[in-house]
């Protein structure tokens, strides 16, 4: 099966700092991939490049056999790659429903055949339909995270990039969001998930990629990665 996403030696320099150094990996369609690593490993930078928020210095990004290297984020969204934000960024002047409407109307208009997504149905699916007309700023943190997901899903992505979607949530809220992620995966969307909460990410991913100092350190199943000595060293070394 052809990978849905294939990145090859992606590198990013920022004014003298090497944030990413020749990172390469493939993602197969339909999985939940975890991306972990100590602080400063470059996870968010990589996510931002895949989302089109920033452009790589070198390397290639191929998505569904199309070269999307360096595409801006709206182009990535049109191609089917969409991100959520670590700190939710709702459109403050708009209601919850209108926020999702932006995703519906500007994302890909085609996608999974047969489904007639509209904003209310997405809200139902994500679990915040009762808040549809509320101003988006009045939502709790957990609901704002759901709104982020709803908005992203409204664009009908094939690849959903989740940025620390569980940060700041309580245990039950985290479990609830993870269930939602599995529901999204079941519906056919591939997920790449950056997270600090190792327990959460190990429980939901089928394949984990570990980064450190801007490079890919290891990848494999959650069990394999957790027992990999270099991964353990990276985390323990960092907390010193």
């Amino acid at each position, binding site marked *: 099966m052809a990978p849905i996403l294939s990145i090859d030696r992606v590198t990013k*320099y920022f*004014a*003298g700092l090497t944030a990413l150094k020749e990172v390469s990996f493939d993602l197969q369609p339909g999985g939940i991939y975890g991306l972990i690593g100590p602080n400063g490993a470059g996870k968010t930078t990589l996510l931002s490049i895949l989302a089109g928020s920033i452009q790589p*210095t070198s390397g290639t990004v191929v998505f569904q056999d199309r070269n999307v290297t360096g595409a801006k984020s709206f182009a990535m969204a049109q191609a089917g790659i969409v991100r959520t934000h670590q700190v939710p960024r709702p459109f403050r002047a708009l209601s919850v429903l209108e926020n999702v409407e932006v995703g519906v109307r500007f994302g890909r208009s085609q996608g999974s055949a047969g489904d007639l997504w509209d904003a209310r149905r997405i809200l139902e699916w994500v679990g915040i339909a009762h808040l549809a007309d509320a101003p988006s700023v009045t939502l709790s943190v957990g609901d704002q995270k759901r709104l982020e997901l709803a908005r992203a899903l409204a664009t009908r992505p094939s690849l959903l990039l989740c940025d620390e979607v569980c940060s700041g949530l309580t245990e039950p809220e985290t479990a609830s969001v993870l269930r939602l992620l599995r529901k999204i995966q079941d519906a056919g969307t591939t997920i790449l998930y950056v997270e600090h909460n190792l327990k959460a990410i190990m429980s939901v991913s089928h394949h984990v990629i570990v980064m450190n100092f801007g490079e890919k350190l290891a990848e494999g199943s959650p069990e394999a990665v957790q027992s990999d000595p270099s991964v353990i060293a990276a985390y323990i070394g960092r907390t010193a």
Partner: protein
Amino acid sequence: MSAVDLLNLLIAALLQAGVYAAMSVGMTIIYGVMKIVNLAHAGFLMLGAYFVYELYARFHIDPLLGVLLAFPVFFLIGMSVHWVLVRRIPTSDQPTLTSLLLLFGLWLVLQNLGYVVWGNSDRAILTPRTLDVLQIGPISFPTVRLVVFGAALTSLGSLEFVLHKTWFGRAVRALMQNSDAGRIVGVNVERTARVAFGVGIAFAGAAGGLLAMIYSFSPDFGGPFLLRSFVVIVMGGLESFAGVAVGSVILAVVETFCILVLPANYQPAIAFSLLVLALIVLPEGVAGLWNKRRRWA
């Protein structure tokens, strides 16, 4: 054009660049620390000019001394403006609509203040120095421009010193790079912002005084210089002090040589064209180019 003429023009441009740098540095500080484009900069340039003028016309205080005095006076004015107005508006890491409108409103108020107090006739500061020329070999330096250049350089040098050797300077540089990180390591953001704003206005006022020594002025004289400050900081990269120096030189050189072909009236148009060109060719300014160069090192 002979080599001597060329040299004279280049030197004139360099002297001009010094003033432009002093004029623009205030904006850079304020933008760098608070992400606010200080549109009232023009108003403070104007007030600085009148301040130095009045000191000279009423108390016969040498304009250079007047410029020196402008620093503390305008520093206090700047801090007061921040305390009364600027601190009440939300800031973010992008310039906000609110900040643009607030400072634009302030500029209007300052302009009107100028008209009310001083009327709209042109003033000029004429001292024995004004017409003096220093002759070194074939090169002639108008003395007043030399003096202004020296003052500009001195103030820029002092700023460099402050930025690198004092707590304030370190706090400013921290906030310019990353305000969240700065806050985390203990920088008092609001206090630093207030002082930074004060310093920015201090430079605007003093630079206005320097400009007044060279040009005649009226209450709306801030406008063209505001545009020039924009050109300088955009070319420099908005937040880089070295960029201000480079941007000033480029602007001054282009203006000086354009006078050969275009009447001086068109200078705002020249400045604007340079601005647009800079935005097209060098969107991150000269500083951006420098950052990218390091990648290849």
